[in-house]
């Protein structure tokens, strides 16, 4: 299990966080073509190199942050300092609460 450098909580077990994947720019929703939007949703380069990822410290400070991780060696670098803006208006990630979430019939109770 990785140790992930949270800028607020220090090194934490990977299971304390959620990895949202590589941070990619969100295309303009009003002009994006189907190919551009599809790339934003589903396609990542997955190089054996550093990528900038978004992590969510769900069991700690509950902050999102971006950090570079080498996908072959798992080495982290350049984590943000507290107070750093996370990404910017051109970066977001789509995986939280997306269609991948599975729920049992008993759980989806609405009102």
């Amino acid at each position, binding site marked *: 299990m990785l140790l992930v*450098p949270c800028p607020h909580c*220090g090194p934490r077990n990977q299971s304390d966080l959620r990895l949202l994947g590589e941070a990619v720019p969100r295309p303009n*929703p009003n002009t994006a073509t*189907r190919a551009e939007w599809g790339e934003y949703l589903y396609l990542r380069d997955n190089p054996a190199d550093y990528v900038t990822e978004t992590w*969510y410290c769900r069991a700690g400070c509950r902050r999102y942050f971006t950090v570079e991780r080498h996908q072959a060696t798992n080495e982290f670098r350049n984590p943000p300092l507290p107070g750093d803006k996370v990404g910017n208006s051109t970066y977001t990630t789509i995986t*939280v609460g997306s269609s991948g*979430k599975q729920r049992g019939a008993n759980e989806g109770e609405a009102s």
Partner: protein
Amino acid sequence: MTMRRLPQQPGEVIDRSQPLKFTWNGKPAVGYQGDTIASAIAAGDNRIMSRSMKYHRPRGLLTADFWDPNAFVQVDDEPNVRSGHRLLTNGIDVGPQNVWPSLDYDVKAANQLVGRFLSPGFYYKTFIHPQKLWPAYEKVLAQFAPGGTVDYESEMAYFDKRYTHPDVVVAGGGPAGLAAATAAAEAGASVLLVEHEHHLGGHLRYGTEDDRALANGLELAARSAGVEILLDSTVTGRYEDNWLGIVQRSHPLASERLVKARAKTLIVAAGLIERPYVFEGNDRPGVMLASAARRLINMYSVKPGDRAVVLTANESGDQTVADLERAGVKIAEVVDARAGGNVTATAGSQKAVESVTLGDGSTRDADLLITAVGWTAPTSLLNMSGDRPVYDPAGARFFPDRTPDNVLVTGGIAGDGTLDQIVEHGRETGALAASRALAVAHRLQALTARAMPVSDPEPAMAPDARTPLGRDPHPELYRSTTHGIVDYSEDVGSKDLVSATKEGYDSVELLKRYTTATMGPAQGKLETVNTVAVLAEARGETIAEVGTTIWRPPYAPLTLGALAGRIFEPERVSSVHSWHVANGAKPILAGQWIRPEHYGNPQAEVTNVRENVGIIDISPLGKLDLQGADVPKLLNLLYTNKWSKLGVGSVRYGIMCAEDGVVMDDGVTGRISENRWLMTTTSSGAGSVWEWAENWLQTAHPDWDVHITPVTTSYTSINVAGPKSRELLSRLTDVPLDNDSFDYMQVRPGTVAGVEDCIMWRIGFTGELSFELHVPAGYGLHVWEALMDEGADLGIKPFGLEAQRIMRLEKGHFIVGQDTDGLTKAPTTGLQPLIKLDKDDFAGKPELAWAMGQGVGDAADAAGMDLPVLVSVQMTDSSIVPPEASQIVRPNTNEILGRITSSRYSPTLKASIGLAQVPPSHASSGTQLTVLLTNGDRTTATVQQHHAHFDPDGLRLRS
């Protein structure tokens, strides 16, 4: 019965003042405190421990330790106990395994007569055809399944978990491990030493007087230095950043405890495991490793035989001769492999060695054959650290190659030397590990916000300046000139390996999987290198060229109980839970919440809500308190509809989609005051919607003025529903409740039953006039009881989840995750009016635009017409309620068109109703659908005009 027990030996670990009684194979037996089960059985002059799993051949002790492949026994209700390791306790009932009807006479031993038919792949090849007969084959073959007997009535056992963060973990408490742990602790590191066996000192424990004195000294030093020691525990796995799994079998309370350790540095000092030799008759009881004989004599004072041949290729074998002589075993012959001596076969009955054939063809009468032909380096933890050990023919074993900075190796795995050199290497390793632990800690800290001041230089990762251990020459002894068993656990012989190689399974990974060699309980510790050696010989290559398999976790097995252990998943209940329990609610687990499913009769609960008034505890409903000037912007971004003009006192329904346009959650949000909103989500969506909203706020719009507080458990939520709900509530609040003052889809703060700061809103999931109350949780039970008291004359009854599900289905309300799935885009739900494509932006907007035929791109891309449609259906036969997820098919074929997503019998309509996802071609009102039931029958259903089966115009909820 202690026929083979020797007089007191200087290093014995048994306590003769503490005799223990047990039964072995149905007969009474005795042993002493400190005995393993195997040593006590051996002391009773029993040579056969169990039978082998495939051929049911009688087997005796081979290694007399944890890895002994022949010594699995049944202890009371526990199967597959490693008797070479498990300590004897008083009163246990121990039985052999793989025996039928008895240990002495076994019918299935006939397997070995037909052994040539049980060649590798026999089962695959023989029973694959005809497939029809497989159930019959299976019944017979199941009788031959190896192992002990599982008792399904066994009592529950307690298993535990522990988390720890030592600077240094040392795997192995032999001389090198003890020295390393001590040196690391003396350098200031916190050290956890994990020893697989019951005693520290490793092989020194069954060595000479001097060996034991050294072990005692090293142990004392480690304890004095403050090393934490776990005995009878094993580091089972090493993962990323030295995350270690350790199974502790010696916990006083837990059957097993899984210790999860995050070590800054790991020292692997696992020692060496003695390797068996392959020759004809090498599994006959009486063939034993030198280390096993030394354990039996020196630790347990058991005489392993009467007349021995010793095949020795190393110092350990030489020392065994002296031990045997001291124990009164006659030495028939010492065969020195270093001088070219060899052993080719044993002869005798199936149950005992009677003579041994030497390399020159001569024979010696003997009942014991001791082999000391070399060692296997158990490099599992190194493999798990990314190391690929390299074979050295001069040393006749694998040696480590390269490990990461935070994994260090010492002791026999690392190399050879005198005991002084080994201990010194351990010390240097411990000091290096402590220094590197500091560097690792510093590196981790520097990566995070709590970085050291720039002026504080980061300690460098200390270079490895240890004096390396040497490599003693050792002859390569794997297989004699004859064939024998390679994998005792799996009954795989060297002939099997050779024939499998000829069949084309000639890579080590293939050979392993095809023959199952190395896949038994010993997990390769004894047989991997022999397997590789036989393969190399068959291929005419060297061991280095053939390579070896990669050892993966776990190093030693652990029980499923240890993995499951104590579960830290909370169960949640509302503040009204005690009332539900006292009033006969049938509980149901929904996510983490325990909720009332019903209070006896859900159908009657529905009727009572439709006619009078009912209340339901909906506390798990997700609730988020939103404050700040930019909340409308956030709502516009998360929901598909528009929120800018939501006035104070109003609530609105909305659906949320992910960026792929798939429905993620739904709920209502109300504006309670100028700057405060309350958002409700589905019960299971409370956490994920919060994270989703925070994601947008933190990553895309950090400049927005919005503060979100999850308040799900701050409020007890109660829905008061039914035509008499207004009358009931008016008795408990001053807030005007008439339609002019408090209309449908409005929200009012106020006092209820004397409780201030309640929030009430008028919405209608059940389809009736209803008020949803959110009461400060501390007063939830009070308000619930006040409602029940005040409503007595109105016919109030509580209702549970099941009644609510029926009523929402009567109204055609869908549930996200039940009526929608991971592919359901918003237009499928039929709520197109709530998808406002003229908004500048919202999550999933482009996908929804394409789905509705209004997206950017060419005409082909814009086709959204084939999305499934959610429709309400009624069964033609009201007595049939098809199970949810029943398929909708074409009338005369099984081509799937869609599925029933929800179904219930409606007591209000006296009809079998449901929601279904169907293709657009089958979505128009009046379409007949064919529903395939689980028993294969077909029934029909009709698509309804409205989603709501009941009161489609919503007159009741607006009343």
